[in-house]
């Protein structure tokens, strides 16, 4: 067994620091998810509505956010707003802003997709039974939309968690940054620690995202 430098984890509070970094990453992603999902639902409903101006504006927003790498968005919000307006956003706040912008855009597209995938005949057969418009949405359209949406939005959540590894670029000390610090600090004593520590980081991401993925595929099968 080659030396993976795992003993470094046991030094001082290294393991606790890594978990603390993971918590920072999770805090950013969970807060962003909590804000993006309702906003995304709202924009998604507007996008599948009838107003062409609203639709065009939202389309442009979605495309811009999608085309830009998240890293560029992070730099733009973190450094750009300071230059332009003198705002002093903390790295974590800037990260949440970017993740909300991104998550809302992706979520709205998922909602739009789910809504337009409900066949027109479902509305008609419901109305032919005498259900009102509101009842049709409440009993027929929304339950079906939610079923299509939940597995997709869970996948979005795991993507958001994984993408938090970028926020170290604007100075947020999340799990990957903590890992780098630990490796740097032990460069002389345990040169192999890079293996061990990154392996642990991998496991931490895996243990966070895997159950969420399992839940998504379970729901997908259940509601097929």
């Amino acid at each position, binding site marked *: 067994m080659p030396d993976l430098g795992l003993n470094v984890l046991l030094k001082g509070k290294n393991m606790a620091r890594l978990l603390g970094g993971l918590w920072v990453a999770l805090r950013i992603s969970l807060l962003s998810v909590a804000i993006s999902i309702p906003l995304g639902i709202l924009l998604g409903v507007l996008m599948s509505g009838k107003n062409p101006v609203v639709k065009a504006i939202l389309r442009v927003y979605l495309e811009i956010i999608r085309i830009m790498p998240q890293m560029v968005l992070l730099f733009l919000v973190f450094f750009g707003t300071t230059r332009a307006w003198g705002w002093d956003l903390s790295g974590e706040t800037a990260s949440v802003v970017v993740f909300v912008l991104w998550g809302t855009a992706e979520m709205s597209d998922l909602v739009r997709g789910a809504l337009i995938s409900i*066949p027109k*005949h*479902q509305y*008609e*057969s*419901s*109305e*032919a*039974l*005498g*259900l*009102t418009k509101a*009842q049709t949405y409440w*009993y*027929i359209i929304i*339950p*079906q939309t939610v*079923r299509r949406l939940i597995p997709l939005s869970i996948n979005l959540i795991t993507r958001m968690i994984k993408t938090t590894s970028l926020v170290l670029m604007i100075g947020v000390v999340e799990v990957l940054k903590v890992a780098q610090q630990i490796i740097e600090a032990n460069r002389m004593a345990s040169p192999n620690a890079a293996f061990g520590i990154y392996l642990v980081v991998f496991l931490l991401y895996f243990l966070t995202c895997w159950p969420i993925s399992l839940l998504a595929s379970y729901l997908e099968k259940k*509601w*097929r």
Partner: protein
Amino acid sequence: MAEPILTVEHLVKGYGENTVLDDVSFSVRPGEVVVVVGPSGCGKSTLLRCINALEPTQSGRVRLGNETVAYGGKGLTSLRQRIGMVFQSYELFPHLTVLDNVMLAPLKVAKRPKDEVQKEAEALLDRVNLLNKARSYPRELSGGQKQRVAIVRALAMHPEILLFDEVTAALDPEMVREVLDVMLDLAKQGRTMIIVTHEMQFARAIADRVIFLDGGKIVEESTPEAFFDHPKTERAQKFLRTFTFDSVK
């Protein structure tokens, strides 16, 4: 003779330049089975959709009893409860079980008590031999079974008239019969129905009256015997010939 349940008066419907229904008038009396036939695109399905106000019309009106069924009109939801409609593509609600599909409208729209609704839903499902599927989801059923559930779902609202829009057109041949048998049974019970179909043998067996629609107009309206054996118009003769192969031999 009894007062008509449903009257269609000078219905005109078009999409832009294209006229789909051109001054269509007819009425349906209680217990009567009216079969509408005609070439594809003649406006049969549109006619049914206009009767149920799923589509706007340009002029004319549809009367159910003494009330007018109008697209976006007042009291439309309560009028629609009195008209049952079955679609070509079944359109069961995929997220609900068979029983819940049947019970939804009686519970939420008619607001009837649950025990009574469930008892009736089960009795209706039993009548079409699907009581054992009550807890299944639509995706677990065959096309013919789905369509029988769709018929039961419409019946559970106690409609005064039933509209059938090419209900066997999407089915495999061996499943057509089970659905047609259910409809024959309904006719025997004295239900009032308007049926759009391509099954000519069935039309002949079930109809009290046949309406032949072509180019959005009623071209012929007569008893099934008169229509199928001695069609009066050239167009009806030509249409009926497309269902036989004698001329090919």
